[in-house]
């Protein structure tokens, strides 16, 4: 059994708004082994970005963690003071944000911006040592070193994203959280960046959390995956196991929602309805208003954790797990 680097234990979080509390995360629990890539999928507003931001406590003022623990290397990050947490940000855990390429300051050279980040978090680096480090990082992410002295407007979208990745790698973190890092990019550029990111991760033996709405990207990149719905982690396990035998009806529906460029042309399955408003989420199983297997139990009581008979780490929150008791699985 490999070492667990990150453990989220019963994490709940809400955003206070004028209209009431938005229950953005509800009792999310999982463990991530060191060196693995975890893919988190879900639709907008399901809480995947909130979960990522909660790990580094990069949350807006109206957010309140109402319960649970976040253990990183056995240290509970939620017990750390803001000043102590700063030691973790960037050095041990770094983040690549959604559309981060627009975050580069237009009036500074790209290289200088990365040097500044390095020196901010590791003051022992001199300017020239930091610059050397930037050169190595540029090579790592596949950017030409002559580009260090260029300004962001001289970069294409894909190159900016690479620079952001270089910045995230700058302090040699143990965990990288990448939140939709390629969403705004064209498919060829996306492919190149993801390949590069994955290779760097393997070379440096880093752990990674990869957040995406695209199940195809997750399928290719991550060894383990989690599916989020309405603030809950509804299914978690190895990617192979989830694709082979999804337990939660939402996961199964999601997998059949993506057409593929290869293989047989299967009819897509429709998940009826829309995700719930988290100001007033449904009782019981959050997915019950859209689920075809719904029973009275689902409407009232939060489902228990069901573990896959074939893989212990694979679990889902469901009263009527697919594949159990000889039940037909739509996905197969």
């Amino acid at each position, binding site marked *: 059994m490999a070492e667990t680097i990150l453990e989220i234990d019963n994490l709940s979080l809400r955003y206070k708004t004028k209209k009431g509390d938005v229950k953005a995360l509800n009792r999310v629990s999982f463990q991530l082994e060191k060196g693995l890539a975890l893919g988190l999928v879900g*639709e907008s507003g399901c809480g995947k970005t909130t979960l990522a931001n909660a790990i580094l406590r990069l949350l807006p003022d109206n957010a309140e963690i109402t319960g649970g623990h976040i253990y990183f290397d056995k240290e509970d990050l939620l017990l750390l003071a803001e000043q102590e947490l700063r030691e973790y940000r960037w050095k041990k855990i770094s983040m690549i944000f959604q559309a981060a390429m627009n975050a580069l300051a237009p009036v500074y050279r790209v290289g200088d911006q990365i040097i500044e980040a390095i020196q901010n978090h590791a003051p022992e680096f001199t300017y020239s040592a930091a610059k050397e480090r930037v050169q190595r990082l540029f090579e790592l992410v596949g950017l030409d070193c002559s580009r260090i002295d260029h300004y962001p407007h001289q970069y294409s979208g894909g190159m900016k994203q690479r620079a952001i990745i270089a910045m995230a790698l700058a302090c040699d973190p143990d965990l990288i959280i990448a939140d939709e890092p390629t969403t705004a990019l064209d*498919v060829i550029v996306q492919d*190149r960046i993801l390949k590069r990111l994955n290779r760097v991760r393997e070379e440096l033996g880093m752990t990674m959390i990869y957040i995406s709405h695209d199940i*195809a990207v997750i399928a*290719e990149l991550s060894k383990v995956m989690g599916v989020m719905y309405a603030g809950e982690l509804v299914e978690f396990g190895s990617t192979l196991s989830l694709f082979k035998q999804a337990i939660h009806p939402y996961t199964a529906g999601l997998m059949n929602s993506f057409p593929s460029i290869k*293989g047989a042309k299967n009819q*897509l399955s429709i998940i009826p309805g829309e995700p719930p408003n988290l100001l007033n989420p449904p009782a019981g199983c959050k997915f019950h208003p859209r689920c075809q297997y719904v029973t009275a139990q689902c409407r009232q009581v939060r489902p228990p954790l069901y573990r896959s008979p074939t893989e212990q780490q694979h679990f889902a929150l469901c009263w009527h797990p697919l594949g159990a008791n000889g039940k037909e699985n739509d996905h197969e």
Partner: protein
Amino acid sequence: MNEPLLEVNGLEKYFSIKSGFFRRELKYLQAVDGISFKIKRGQMFGLVGESGCGKTTTGRLLVKSIAPTAGEIVFNGKSIIELDDDEVRDFRQSVQMIFQDPYQSLNPRMTIFDIIAEPLKIHKIGAFNQREELVAGIMEKVGLSPAASFIFRYPHELSGGQRQRVAIARAMVIKPDFIVADEPTSMLDVSIRTQVIELMKKLQEESRVSYLYITHDLAVARYLCTEIAVMYLGKIVESGEIEKVTQNPAHPYTQALISAVPIPDPSYQRESIAIIGGVSKPIDLLPRCRFYDRCYERDQHCQSQAMPDLHEIEEQHFVACYQR
């Protein structure tokens, strides 16, 4: 029946841009640079390519929202370039457009009823109470039901998926022959996207309306369309029957593009073709193959010759490449 609904010949659209010292230098951006294709009646025709390849400009040209620099668009046997006022009105009644962003394409001050009924008013179809019936009918069809609970609402009260259904209803209500759909699902969430894809498929099969479906998502194009054209820097580099183009791509660009699409199957080992560089802007182009700079199969011939024309390499499969 085999006669095409729409035929495009040598269509060009150049945008003039000023650059250089004091912006005195006049250059042209060759957004669409001599493309030709045909769309049959009742067909879902896919136009794919990366950002900036000219696919949206092509869509706008086809609905006569901008005028072409050169070339010919024949719709229902008639050139649409020079129409008189009456004919333009007829044309606008038979051609509709669905846009990418349902948050921007609906007038926020109009109710859902007014939005969907607007084309009926403009084209003077039906008396007022008949319009109500027509609108309610189309709303049920696109899944905005019960219609009564939606008609007096405003766009901001609707979700993204519902708004796109409104946009589809507005396009369908006057029973057009041809719809240009420009990335209609790319702003939507996964489960909603599938609903809208299936809705468009169902409506298309029922009404036999022709579609130009513009998208960057090749997997969706494969799912919906029967024929496809791949654009690169203002040119069509490959076109033909959907399975032939997507399963057996011939042009080096199409091959690279398709090989870069992730597959939703963790056991599939995808090999992608690495191509150098990125898409440039179609300005100051040399008179040769648009893909030359990035091509991994180029040779002397490609360097010296003009842009190759599309030629048939097998039945219903065309490619513009000297190596094929």
